[in-house]
């Protein structure tokens, strides 16, 4: 049961991480270029939004460490790597917290 609970906690965190990355790209596509069918990303804004979304959406009990965050203006893309750490019920018996590496990537394509 604890294995299932740990998996659910990881899945919840993974969903929030991926959602934050996708939303940061989606929210920072520069609107003034859309009419010309050009997709350009405000990379600085996307990075700031990603950090803001993680800070606001990630529940207590998780420690997120971002090791690198890179973005490209065209094609609009954001890549984030880092680790996420959370504890399990077995911590009280001396087991270490679970630390899992992650790489997130969000790219915005124009669907023709």
């Amino acid at each position, binding site marked *: *049961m604890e294995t299932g609970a740990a998996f*659910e906690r990881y899945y919840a965190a993974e*969903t929030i991480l991926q*959602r934050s990355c*996708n*939303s940061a790209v*989606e*929210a920072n596509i520069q609107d003034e270029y859309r009419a010309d069918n050009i997709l350009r990303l405000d990379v600085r804004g996307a990075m700031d939004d990603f950090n803001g979304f993680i800070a606001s959406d990630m529940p207590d009990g998780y420690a997120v460490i971002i090791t690198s965050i890179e973005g490209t203006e065209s094609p609009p893309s954001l890549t984030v790597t880092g680790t996420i750490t959370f504890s399990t019920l077995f911590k009280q018996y001396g087991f270490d917290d679970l630390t899992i590496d992650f790489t997130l990537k969000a790219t915005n394509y124009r669907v023709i």
Partner: protein
Amino acid sequence: MAALGKIKGLLRDKKGDEAVSFLLTTAMLVLIFLALISSMIYIMQYYNASYLCRRVVRSIEVTGLYDETETMDIISGMSNDNLEDIDVQVDAVYLSGNKIQLRQAFSVTMTASYRIAVLRFGESPIQIVLPIEVKVAGMSEVYHKE
């Protein structure tokens, strides 16, 4: 009178007492074990329902749309026969139609029931219907131009 005396004698007789005690204890242990297995199966079904609900939420998140037909397709494609009367309620603020704006939160509540057959006498088993309710929150990842 002789029969009554024989019964009284049998009741006083302690021979086989341990064997009867052993049989009753074994029967109780088997029942407890079966109850535990049934509980575990119910918990497994709860996890299944939880996973199913999260998949529905993820589908709405990445499309930014609540499409009832697509939701029911996901459920019918992934649910097993043990979950019955599956119902999905989506609580969201829509931008227009079924569109949910970027970063707009919504929640999906899935209700279902699971039957445990306690005893089976021929074609009419005695069953307990246990409810399952899962609520998962999500957030749209799609920007809809207003």
